[in-house]
């Protein structure tokens, strides 16, 4: 029983990482119709940023960890900002080209990281309490999982509050329906695009910082591996639906971990793809997606 709980929590942690990427991608897609392939690289870059902060400490303190997280969030945001302004915006209205340009950017960033820091994983030092476990119902749960799940929960609540309570949330929800009409009400939609893209980058950045604590290390290719699972989350949840992405993240993370542990290591990753194919055949628009979204 306690093992089972351990696996579930571990799966939730994994799902949290997927969600951090998928949530940003989902809002970006909803508002701008852009699918960013560069967000995996944003995640890796932010992971390296947190590694730069933490590598000099043997066992960093909690404030130092927080600093590293802040730095990785800011790194993700900054890289995303440059990407939006320099590459995505000039190709406005050309969906395929925008997608391809993010593919190119992802390649360039990963190659750059591999060139500077080498292709191998770099260990990220963690505060002692993070490597400890907390006993929940008899199961020794790693604190890094709990931190990840907790922060992902904060992000979920935060996104919902922003979308439902703030003016920017209003603009985003309206822009998803018809961004031209939003600008015809006197609102600078271009700036909203940039903000959303940057916010997505910051979420990837947070994911990068946390992935370091989850896996204990960072490599240039970490983000791309996670990006694909986030894409699967997006399709299963329904493109453009945050709640769909949340549900799909949890389902995927947990079932992946359970299958990997109980059936065969690695089979969970394949199972996820089987789930994807099944979703496509039964309900192509995803759990909470709208049909016309995909056309």
């Amino acid at each position, binding site marked *: 029983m306690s093992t089972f709980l351990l696996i579930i929590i571990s799966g939730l942690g994994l799902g949290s990482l997927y969600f951090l990427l998928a949530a940003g991608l989902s809002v970006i897609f909803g508002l701008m119709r852009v699918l960013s392939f560069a967000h995996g690289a944003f995640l890796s870059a932010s992971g390296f940023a947190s590694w730069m902060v933490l590598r000099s400490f043997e066992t960093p303190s909690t404030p130092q960890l927080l600093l590293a997280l802040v730095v990785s969030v800011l790194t993700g945001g900054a890289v995303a900002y440059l990407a939006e302004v320099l590459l995505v915006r000039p190709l406005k209205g050309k969906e395929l080209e925008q997608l391809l340009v993010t593919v190119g950017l992802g390649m360039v960033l990963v190659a750059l990281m591999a060139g500077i820091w080498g292709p191998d994983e770099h260990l990220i030092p963690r505060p002692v309490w993070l490597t400890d476990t907390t006993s929940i119902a008899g199961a020794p749960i790693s604190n890094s999982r709990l931190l990840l799940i907790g922060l992902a929960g904060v992000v979920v609540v935060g996104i919902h509050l922003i979308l439902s309570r703030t003016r920017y949330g209003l603009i985003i929800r*309206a822009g998803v329906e018809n961004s031209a009409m939003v*600008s015809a009400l006197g609102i600078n939609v271009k700036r909203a695009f940039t903000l959303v893209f940057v916010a997505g980058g910051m979420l990837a950045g947070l994911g990068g910082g946390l992935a370091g604590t989850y896996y204990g290390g960072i490599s240039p290719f970490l983000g791309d591996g996670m990006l694909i699972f986030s894409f699967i989350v997006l399709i299963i949840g329904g493109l453009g639906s945050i709640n769909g992405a949340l549900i799909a993240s949890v389902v995927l993370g947990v079932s992946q971990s359970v299958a990997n542990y109980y059936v065969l290591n690695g089979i969970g990753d394949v199972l996820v793809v089987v789930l994807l194919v099944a979703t496509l055949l039964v309900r192509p628009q995803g759990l909470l997606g709208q049909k016309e979204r995909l056309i």
Partner: protein
Amino acid sequence: MTAERVYGDAGPGLGGSILSVRDLHAYVGQSHILQGVSFATRPAQVTAILGRNGVGKTSTLRSVLGLMNHTGVIEFDGRQISSLETHEIIRLGLAYVPEDRDVFHGLTVAENLRLAERRGLAPDYDRVFELFPELRNRRGQRAGTMSGGQQQMLSLARALLHDNRLMLVDEPTKGLAPRLVSEFVATLEQITAHTSVLLVEQNLAVARRLADHVIVLSEGRVVLDGAAEDVLADDSSIRRLLGVAADHEEG
């Protein structure tokens, strides 16, 4: 129609036109939708753009608003605006009531209105709810669940939240039941007493009732431009240019 009209806020000299368009060209895909449209609105008046389907009426409005690629000169209040972005143009004091209403279906009435609030200006909710008391009761309702007429009210209400120099109104009566049309026209009449309006309309009767100044478009060009009573009096050309609507008013 009332002779004296005042700007919502003190405009420039009443003699000049608030919006003037010269040699406007626009393409949709490969087809040349606007082929050199030129006109100027008269101050404190309702200018109606008439013409058959597909002659470029909506494209003219969308070009003015920067929602469509175009070439030519568009001046608002003496200022060249064709290089500005849509939101910048709107903030100069324009409001847009689009064809097909285009309210945000997933948002509530209150949220639709809140979105139309402009930074630094106080929204005039009293005026809006006075004109459309029904909207006050439906504040929490999702716009997508309302009827066409109610959505049209909301669309208009969004434009009335602030005082504007010019309102661009695209086919406000399209698809409304006859009873609603007359109601709506009455409301519009109230509004036009305070604001200049550039109105696109298919319904000739509505145009007759509201417009002071009429521009008739045909095949992407202005073919008639003059005081409403003069232009609309010329039955033969109106019938030719507007097709069906005029035919039927005849019969």
